[in-house]
């Protein structure tokens, strides 16, 4: 049963072809990696899926419904969540509130209910707080719950981003370079974490990464982009030995190597 499909997604800015005919089909439980040199169009693909960009051409279907052109908040409410490459947390808000916000879209109380603190609202608020705490415990940030999000370390902020994405109750999770800036131990923990949450939350994961340990380590299938075009796709083993992929990366100084 296809959960998600992107068909011939194309993005053209001015005269520049940022993404050229990107297609992808996902079933529940898939863990797919999207790799390629910087500027290959990976984040642009994400932005098209999440509604931040309107594709110039192409269609996106999620749970049988066409979602291309919908606004980001609508797409999130339908079950697609994302993290950002350059961490966009709510800096001045406490850590726990960063996560609680993801529950807001599902709030049933009206604003009058919130002001008057009706029993329904109080119950919902309690549920949001408890749910957020549970997620914070999973990412080991529970003891920092009241701290200002901006005061967290880089690694902690990355984990918080994942927690708040999970709080939107997604079926499809888009992770944009989740391992960026992590040391080998943190990276290993991240890999275990992704596999665990995929199972516990019954998720499908699409992952952009430069760190090949992560990509080769956990992805079932990999798509390689270069200058917007899909130059290769296959299992990790196939990709590792693909000459075109190697060439594309050798053109770039300082990728976290394939071999």
């Amino acid at each position: 049963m296809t959960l998600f499909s992107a068909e011939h997604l194309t993005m053209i800015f001015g005269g520049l072809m940022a993404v050229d005919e990107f297609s992808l089909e996902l079933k529940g439980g898939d863990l797919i990696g999207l790799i390629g040199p910087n500027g290959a169009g990976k984040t642009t693909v994400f932005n098209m899926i999440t509604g931040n960009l309107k594709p110039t051409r192409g269609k996106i279907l999620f749970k049988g419904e066409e979602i291309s052109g919908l606004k980001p908040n609508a797409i999130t409410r339908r079950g697609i969540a994302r993290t950002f490459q350059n961490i966009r947390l709510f800096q001045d808000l406490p850590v726990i509130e960063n996560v609680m916000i993801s529950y807001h879209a599902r709030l049933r109380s009206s604003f009058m209910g919130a002001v008057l603190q009706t029993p329904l609202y109080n119950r919902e608020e309690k549920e949001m707080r408890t749910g957020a705490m549970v997620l914070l415990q999973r990412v080991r940030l529970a003891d920092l719950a009241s701290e200002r999000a901006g005061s967290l370390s880089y690694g902690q902020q990355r984990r918080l981003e994942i927690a708040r994405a999970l709080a939107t109750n997604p079926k499809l999770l888009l992770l944009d370079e989740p391992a960026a800036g992590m040391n080998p131990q943190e990276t290993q923990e991240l890999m275990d974490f992704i596999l665990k949450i995929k199972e516990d939350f019954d998720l499908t994961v699409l992952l952009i990464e430069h760190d090949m340990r992560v990509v080769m380590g956990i992805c079932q299938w990999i798509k390689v982009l270069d200058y917007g075009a899909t130059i290769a796709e296959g299992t990790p083993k196939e990709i590792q030995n693909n000459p075109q992929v190697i060439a594309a990366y050798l053109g770039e100084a300082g990728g976290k190597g394939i071999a």
Partner: protein
Amino acid sequence: MHPTRDRILTGLSFMALFAFLYWAKGNATEYQIRLMNNCAIFITLAVSYNLINGICGQFSLEPNAFVAIGAYTSALLTMSPAEKQISFIIEPLIWPLNVISIPFWLSLIVAGVVTGFLAFLMGFPVFRVRGDYLAIVTLGFGEVVRVVANNLQTITNGPLGLKGLVPHTNLWWSFGFMTCTLFFIWRLTKSSFGRAMKAIREDEVAAEAMGIRSFRYKMMAFTVSGFFEGIAGGLLAHLITTISPVLFTFFLTFNLLIIIVVGGLGSTTGCVISSVLFVLGSEALRAVEEPFSIGPVHVPGIPGMRMVIFAVILVMVMIFARQGIMGRGELSWQRLIDLLRRTGGLLRSRG
């Protein structure tokens, strides 16, 4: 956290406040009562204004326009037909306004609803497009209100304005309404809806990505601000008993802007503190505009110097102390207790 303790303390403080007002009614001078009324109304306005600017992070310049609309709406509804006949000497007031006269409390509600509705209409084109434009749209709207008020002889009585309003607004009304506004806005801000607004302020793209319909909550903040500012306008009208277009210039908005910036954009308690400081400070600064002498040197008063000082304060705060007094945080009972403990400790170690 001690929510029960905090609630009791807050309840006690308000009871103390109202007990004080009861005493003041009989014992304070008219000047002092006027200052107190001003404080209450400014607190109300600042806290409402802070909702759209500070909590939701959308820069608006609406207060003078909304206060004017609320003032005129409320005034036109409470004035007796006889009073209206006396005021409208150039052209008579249109029907049905010239025969209506409704109770004060009802006129306030209508004022709030009308203003809130106008806020809603204005928010539509702006928030859907680019929040940046909100400031210029609201600034422009303020000018439009002024122009309309000056020209619409048959409704607003033009430059002559409305006179002879019954001074309904007393300490109970102004502080009572202030309390309601504080309650509503405090609760809203602390709730999930307040969090959504703050998220929009912090990072709108991220907020949308977490499922928040940012348009909806910007509209909510703006409309609620409008509602309370409109009612405050009605209260103001019935406090000073005479209104005309010149009362509602950009100066009012500017003062409120200084208040919320100095208090801390996004802090409701900060607004309360800075409102009081502002009302008292303005009175004190009046001295600068009167002639005074330092010994043998006689300094002539410089009219308008007060506003220059305010403008300089605003720019300085923005450059050097953007957070204002409270920053984004609130003055909680816990903080106050801690502060008192520390001060007490300091005094004890000295003495």
